[in-house]
């Protein structure tokens, strides 16, 4: 049976590196995905993972609700990504028309993935986080609301605006070709 997050947090605070390692294994990919959505490259995203886990270990004793360690780690990752750069606008280069491909390109599937990943660049940091958690990590609206500390209505509005922005960006780029 899988050990509960709260138990792992308590064991970590009591000095168990093994428990902390289990927590890292459990959430490393989630943290990587969030960091990658901000940086767009593996090396920086892995550096952020390391930073976040080191910080988390330092501050874990101060975590008031150990069962919410997942949301805590996501927020810490988000804050770390923001603080490492002066402005979120610097995180990714602007969209480049060369990234958008015509339908008959044999590498379409791969490039469609790239297209969506690149579209994240038109979103502000909070919208980016919401889209990654919703569509890559399968968060429910309730989980998103708890993680981002906003109401479910605000989450829905944020997703709605994000999709509209991304869809418009794709449309404009495809029309420009």
């Amino acid at each position, binding site marked *: 049976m899988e050990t509960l997050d709260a138990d792992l947090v308590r064991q970590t605070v009591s*000095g168990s*590196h093994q428990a*902390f*390692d289990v927590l*890292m*294994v459990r959430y*490393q*990919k989630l943290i*990587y*995905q969030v960091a*990658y959505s901000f940086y767009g490259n*593996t090396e*920086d995203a*892995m*550096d*952020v*993972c*390391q*930073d976040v*886990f*080191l*910080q988390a*270990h*330092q501050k874990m004793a101060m975590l008031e609700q150990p069962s919410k360690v997942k949301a805590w780690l996501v927020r810490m990752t988000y804050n770390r990504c923001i603080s*490492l750069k002066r402005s979120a606008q610097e995180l990714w280069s602007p969209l480049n028309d060369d990234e958008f491909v015509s339908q008959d390109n044999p590498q379409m599937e791969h490039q*469609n*993935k*790239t297209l*969506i*990943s690149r579209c994240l660049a038109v979103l502000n940091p909070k919208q980016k986080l919401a*889209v*990654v958690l919703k*569509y*890559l990590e399968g968060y429910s609206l309730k989980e998103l609301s708890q993680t981002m500390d906003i109401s479910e209505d605000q989450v*829905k509005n944020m*997703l*709605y605006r994000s*999709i*509209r922005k*991304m*869809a418009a960006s*794709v*449309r404009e780029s495809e029309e420009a070709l």
Partner: protein
Amino acid sequence: MSTCNRWQEWLDGVGLDQKDWSLHLAACEECRAHWEFHQRLFFWQGDPMPSEADFTRMRQFVVRQIKPKARPMNYWMVAVGLAACLTGFVVGSFWQKPDKRMPESYSDLRILEQKEGLVRIGFLANEYRETTRPLNDPHIQLILAQSLLNTKSMARRLALLEETQEYMDPEIKSALLHVARYDPEMVVRSKAMDRLMKLPRDRELTQAFIEILRDDTQVHLRLKAMEYLQNQAGEEPLFDQVLRDLQSDPEPAIRVQAQQLPLETY
């Protein structure tokens, strides 16, 4: 500008049945575009993940950094660990800033390869660059020193402290002294202190450790500095002056330790 709100209603799960929604989609180009993009997002799997080996290396690195914390602590350290502490202001009195004449600043140094007295490094200087030079080349030392100061990622700064154990010239020592006192992350300051403690003692080192003892916000770093300095009690007037002040320090652990060290009269 959006003119149709049916898509938002659908997203909210309000009112629309499947048939109604399909009919609307066929007629409304705007909602169709949003719907299609929404579908694409559901099939989006993100970019490829790093390998399991990469994740394992990352975790091993983290565990290596946190392991010293596992050492048994004395009762007073535990008590102090619970107490809040806030002291000190940064005084940049003798740190020499990087040479202003240098056209660029360097960061994020990585040692890529090292053999036969040569080292190949990668680093950022406006853009990513690589160079291969002799181990003792001053340029290498300068890039390393600046990387210790300029690299934004805490993990990379820690890795630099580990990877560059064998590099030690005055430039790097100055960088380490600065990192030990002013790095924003406690774990990095602690690591830099560990490296400095292995060097032969001199006036500059003593002064840096006195500053840490007096000004650092972390009690256990102050205690580490006190441990390093303790056999200079009675020999170093500046340390003795600080020791006198510490006898009324708000932190009990610092007070107790300071009271146990001998004071000399000059």
